[in-house]
């Protein structure tokens, strides 16, 4: 186990979920020093170089280097005739990935940290307007963020002439109304523009033409939250947080039937075992580990053999999955893998925006087949069809990454839990629900939900 300083938790050190720090409390705890340094002592290009140097990567799931993303924003001289009237910074707080709750923790616990971070990021790309795109269900976050924004305005951190400089920034909170696809950056931009939130084609990339057709940067809450600390302590400090892996810390989570569910900030590159057994205390008594999704619903399953894989972008990719949001979802031996994959796919089928055919038709098709298998009505051919669908919905064949995200748990599930699929088919029921045959399945009205499935075997 690599050694690390258990106290080095920059992101979560100030979190208080019951009563977050108000402006004065946050300043007393060292807050707004990063933003002060950026705006009063540094040029935007200096901040950009610092963030590039720090090696910060996007924490929303894709892991794209933040500094590089920012550098795609065109910078204009003041007298340039092509200079757009505005650029935008948008914080993606539309956290809706099943099994992920880290952003909520940050927003409820230390809202000023995000406000400060957004000031730094907006200053770097020279944006004068910024939006926080918050999911509609997070009412408490909305209340606390709005209070933090108001206090930042009162104390000269937002509005015109921030802290006596020439820089001005307006920050607004937008609350969405609940749709997973809004977390996709171009869909988020459409949603902010008041349009139906279908993802856009890329290019043009938002960094060049995004919100209202202007250069726009969209960053995740956790990514942005690192900025005040990078500004305050420097790039070397940030890299030293996790010497053997991607720079910085990561907020890991665990949910499912483990002893202690929760979130823990630790250096990047902790092994799965350290999170799942070191922090979450392993599975609840009497349960065994079957597998887990390392970073939310749209990542590939991993199993016991991967417990010692370090959780960072590269190492998790090497074993065929993705770090995603690092919210580990644990499958125990008393839950059915087919049922779990069915639940995941139902989510993706429901949240598909319906724009492209592979996703709109493919995800419900998978749900139909999996429902059949889970209810003991599947055939061996169904597994072939599922494998074909994994191919039909893969990257490059869809408009955005939602359908490929749905494929990830499906294809890896087919690989690791193949025996379970075959048992369902051969035994004509879910092995875990064998005792309940005759008692009836949980679904009270299966006919109403998917009539087309049942037509087929009425005649049998």
């Amino acid at each position, binding site marked *: 186990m690599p050694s690390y300083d258990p106290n080095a938790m920059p992101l979560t050190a100030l979190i208080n979920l019951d009563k977050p720090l108000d402006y004065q409390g946050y300043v007393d705890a060292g807050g707004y020093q990063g933003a002060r340094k950026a705006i009063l002592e540094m040029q935007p290009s200096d901040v950009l170089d610092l963030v590039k140097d720090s090696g910060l990567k996007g924490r929303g799931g894709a892991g794209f280097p933040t500094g590089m993303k920012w550098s795609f924003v065109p910078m204009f001289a003041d007298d340039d005739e092509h200079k757009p009237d505005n650029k935008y910074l948008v914080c993606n707080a539309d956290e809706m990935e099943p099994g992920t709750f880290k952003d909520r923790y940050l927003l409820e616990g230390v809202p000023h940290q995000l406000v400060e971070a957004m000031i730094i990021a907006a200053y770097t790309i020279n944006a004068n307007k910024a939006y926080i795109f918050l999911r*509609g269900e997070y009412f408490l976050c909305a209340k606390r963020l709005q209070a933090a924004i108001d206090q930042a305005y009162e104390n000269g951190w937002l509005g015109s002439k921030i802290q006596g400089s020439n820089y001005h920034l307006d920050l607004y909170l937008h609350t969405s109304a609940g749709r997973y696809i809004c977390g996709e950056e171009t869909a988020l931009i459409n949603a902010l523009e008041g349009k139906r939130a279908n993802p856009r084609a890329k290019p043009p990339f938002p960094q060049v033409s995004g919100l209202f057709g202007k250069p726009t940067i969209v960053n995740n809450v956790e990514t942005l939250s690192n900025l005040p600390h990078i500004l305050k302590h420097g790039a070397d400090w940030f890299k030293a947080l996790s010497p053997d892996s991607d720079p910085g810390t990561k907020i890991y989570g665990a949910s*499912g039937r483990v002893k202690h569910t929760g979130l823990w900030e630790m250096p990047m590159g902790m092994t799965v075992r350290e999170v799942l057994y070191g922090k979450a205390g392993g599975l609840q008594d009497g349960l065994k580990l079957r597998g887990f999704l390392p970073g939310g619903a749209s990542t590939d399953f991993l199993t016991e053999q991967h417990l010692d894989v370090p959780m960072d972008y590269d190492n998790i990719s090497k074993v065929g999955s993705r770090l995603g949001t690092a919210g580990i979802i644990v499958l125990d031996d008393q839950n059915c893998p087919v049922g779990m994959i069915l639940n995941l796919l139902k989510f993706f089928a429901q949240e598909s925006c319906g724009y492209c055919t592979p996703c709109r038709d493919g995800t419900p098709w998978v749900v139909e087949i999996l429902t059949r298998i889970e209810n003991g009505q599947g055939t061996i051919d169904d597994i072939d069809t599922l494998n074909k669908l994994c191919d039909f919905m893969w990257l490059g064949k869809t408009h955005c990454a939602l359908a490929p995200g749905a494929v990830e748990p499906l294809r890896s599930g087919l690989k690791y839990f193949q025996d379970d699929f075959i048992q369902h088919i051969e035994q004509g029921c879910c092995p875990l629900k064998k005792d309940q045959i005759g008692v009836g399945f949980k679904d009270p009205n299966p006919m109403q939900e998917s009539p087309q499935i049942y037509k087929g075997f009425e005649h049998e």
Partner: protein
Amino acid sequence: MTLASLKYQQIKAVNIDHRSYLSAEEISEIEHETTLLEYREAAGIEALKIVQKNRGWISDDSLYAIADLLQMPVSQLEGVATFYNLIYRQPVGTYVIHLCDSISCYLTGFESIADYLQQELGIGFGQTSADGLFTLLTNACLGGCDKAPVMMIGENHYQSLTTDSIKAILAELKAKANGSKEGEQ
């Protein structure tokens, strides 16, 4: 058949003047939202939420009135309204129960909670109880995975649900609704 020979059904154009339909407070609240964005129609989702907050749901008339206020095609606003889980295009009960059905809740007992809620309320998902108090819906991940199963009613999230805790929550809400009815009389 040529295109011209097709008989089109005449669709009645509906125009609802927002000034006669929306309240002054609603209009000023929506107007405030439009100032935060670059053009008026961008405030569509905010407008829908403001009207829904006052009226419980978005009727066709509300939709026409908002489209009129924001000077946008009603079809575009309908596209937005039907896109989101939290905009209700049908009447709902006093309390809308959003039960999370995503993976962490599924793994920790969603099914038994869902069964219990349906039994207790006597309705299925997507339905409203006969007394008009409760509408039961599922919701994608509510972000309470560490304290699953969870549900959301109004602005409150209820976590670590058990059948006992649900019983208490429902009883409390019923008492609250009955109390406010008596208060009105």
